[in-house]
């Protein structure tokens, strides 16, 4: 998506979400969290996200909804937020994308580009 150089769109990649991502969310009007997903019947799933009502008691990682809750609590910002889950087929360490994974990713990216250019589901 970064290579597509969409105007007004910033891309970031994290191993896992954490507290500083709240700052990144607060700096943007629309946030789309993207990750591989297990068990999907379709190539991808796209849905709205709301800030979480609670926070984990003991964790080094946060979920997207918890990052949004932090952005709201710390910076009084509540960006329009979405979750894009792309169907994963194989999660072997050190392996590249499978052909089916590549295909699903392509469909998801086309959808996401249209969304970021203003199309709304």
């Amino acid at each position, binding site marked *: 998506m970064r290579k597509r150089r969409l105007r007004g769109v910033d891309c970031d*990649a*994290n*191993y*896992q979400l*954490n*507290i*500083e991502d*709240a*700052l990144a969310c607060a700096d943007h009007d629309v946030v789309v969290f993207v990750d591989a997903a297990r068990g999907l019947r379709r190539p991808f799933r796209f849905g709205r996200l709301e800030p979480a009502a*609670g*926070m*984990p*008691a*003991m*964790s*080094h*990682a*946060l*979920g997207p909804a*918890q990052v949004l*809750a*932090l952005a709201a*609590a*710390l910076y009084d910002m509540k960006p329009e937020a979405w979750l894009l889950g792309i169907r994963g087929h194989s*999660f*072997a*360490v*050190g392996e590249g994308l499978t052909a089916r994974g590549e295909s699903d990713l392509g469909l998801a990216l086309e959808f996401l580009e249209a969304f970021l250019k203003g199309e709304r589901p």
Partner: protein
Amino acid sequence: MGKKITIEPVTRVEGHGKVTIRLDDAGRVTESRFHVVEFRGFERFVQGRPYWEAPVLVQRLCGICPVSHHLAAAKAMDVVVGTGPGKLPVTAEKMRRLMHYGQMFQSHALHFFHLASPDFLLGLDADPAVRNVIGIIGLDKGLATQAVLMRKFGQEIILATAGKKVHGTGAIPGGINKNLAPEERDRFLKSPDGLTVDRMIEWARAAIELFKGYHAKNKDLVDGFAAFPSNHLSLVRKDGALDFYHGVLRAVDADGRKVLGDVDYQDYLSYIGEETRAWSYMKFPYLRSLGKAAGWYRVGPLARLNTCDYIPSPLAQKEFEAYKAYTDGKPNNMSLHTHWARLIELLHAAEVIKELLLDKDLQGGKLVRTGRRAPEGVGLIEAPRGTLFHHYRVSADDQITMANLIVSTTNNNESMNRAVDWVARNVISGRPEITEGMLNRVEVAIRAYDPCLSCATHALGRMPLEVTLVDAAGRVRQRKVR
């Protein structure tokens, strides 16, 4: 290629914390255990892989300290390519140090402010719904904002040195693949948004004062909670200084006597054994010289400040002197003082980052050196949670044939069990019901060690800690899952 083995889950070491407490007929604790279902598949995963892939692959072991695994594997592979300790180009070693101290800074800041401070600032018995970072925001928004920016600063250092935040490729066998551009350096020294290394030093000092203030008001808790004698192990620089990146292996006992004297870690198998116990997948390392029963040890901030002779940065050294004076120079065996030690290390990390940023060697052009190939290599590093061991054997055709990893959390296995047992006997024993506050005290004891088990729960976003109370007849009396 070696045999391909499919093991799930695949993206990291799997972990699951489980505490079992057994009671007699009178409700007294007879046994407590902290079990870990630790998935050690990575040692198999890397077999058959080319050796140069290891520093990238092993970062998937852990979501919070991938840099530590990256560098430990790179250090082991330095030995394999004939560029062992002291032979790296100076720019490569200093870039790696900057990456590592950035990692140490962000990890320690995250742990103290995000995970530990809610217990201190909101109370061990506070409502769990607010005993978290949101509660800290409600209490002191400025402090919470600082925590975010400290973590961000450390992550930016990692980005500048490793090339990217995820699966960085900075360290390669025999060196590093980039130096630090002047504009990258200047961003940390005089950033227009104020996110500078001087600001980080200032905030680290303030964090120490925050802890000291809490300690002054809560001495019985901070000094007494889960305090027990132990051995302590870490790397130290050859002259005895604190060093997170490299050194010799040293261990002291609870009274400060050296029980492992500054040995070369390439020979770690001669000094460290690993015991297995039927009830936990996580091994129990021990010092061979003291045997399985007496040779267990702590690693991490508390251990490091017990093994080192001094800290080679002025502000942290001053804090170290006050810290050591509190125990009259003797080793500190108080579990909650781990937080104090962690914050002194936070300050030290910030000071070293500044020192490195001002060092022109980081703009050097010689990045890689190789020498005579060796069939195996060991890489040790002081990860945020303690000493991390990586050991590999490599075939003549460049494939990894054996990997042995002893992660920091494994090194603290016995210590965490002892801490849980302390809580069971001193807080829970004789009381028929587990209250939420008691459950939290079990977590507080474990949390002092900042274990990486939680990294295994990325998908759930929380550490699944389960506490089970079992009566004398073996019936489950109560069970709490978080």
